């Protein structure tokens, strides 16, 4: 591997770790906020990063729980996605990239990305529908603004995973050629 490639690989590893830690903090904070709001409903007006869901909570508690469930689930899935990326980067052997492990991890990344994309899209459609019932869902838009991008990314990663599967077959064939 060339020097520049090695540097890019290390940089990617560091960036993945930073994003993973950030997403874990976000998911953890949202989870703590949620549990806290169950016992002390006053805090729904000042949740993680000044998220104000008091209007939704005051109209209907179940809508609040449902929407918060979406936020929480998407945050946890994003953290899990980067956990899979980190495990892949830690065990990835650039000298012999086509392994069953790498192929399985990339396939897993595509499935998790698709799950995030679909759940975000569904949540987005639901919140759009809720606006007709007088709910102010604008503070939630940032959580599912990139749903289509995730679906597109899942498709691209799936194609890469399929190519990797073929690569593993070729690598095995090459290993058994004497």
């Amino acid at each position, binding site marked *: 591997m060339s020097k520049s490639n090695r540097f890019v690989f290390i940089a990617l590893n560091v960036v993945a770790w930073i994003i993973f830690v950030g997403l874990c903090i976000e998911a953890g904070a949202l989870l703590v906020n949620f549990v806290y709001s169950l016992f002390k409903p006053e805090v729904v007006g000042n949740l993680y990063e000044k998220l104000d869901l008091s209007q939704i909570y005051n109209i209907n508690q179940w809508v609040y729980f449902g929407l918060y469930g979406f936020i929480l689930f998407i945050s946890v899935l994003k953290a899990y996605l980067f956990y899979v990326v980190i495990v892949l980067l830690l065990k990835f052997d650039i000298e012999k990239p086509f392994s069953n492990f790498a192929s399985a991890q990339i396939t897993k990344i595509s499935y998790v990305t698709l799950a995030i994309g679909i759940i975000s899209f569904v949540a987005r459609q639901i919140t759009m529908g809720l606006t007709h019932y007088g709910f102010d869902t604008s503070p939630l838009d940032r959580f599912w603004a990139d749903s289509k991008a995730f679906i597109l990314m899942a498709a691209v990663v799936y194609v890469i995973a399929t190519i990797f599967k073929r690569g593993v077959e070729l690598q*095995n*064939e090459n290993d*058994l*050629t*004497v």
Partner: protein
Amino acid sequence: MPIIVNLDVMMARRKMSLNELSERVDLTLSNLSILKTGKARAIRFSTLDAICKVLDCQPGDILEYRDNAHSGMTPE
């Protein structure tokens, strides 16, 4: 696979060990072992050439086609 590798038979005829063959054909022991046990998926002409030269034989002495239907073996 109906292709049978008779490398061990030829080695026994020439009274040659796997280590010696490995050194003389410049192949690793693991690769020779893959070939000998019939796990190999393909063999390079250069490898076949080297083995035939060292064992003083023809490719047909090392490789044999045996039809599964006649030999009663199940296909892999």
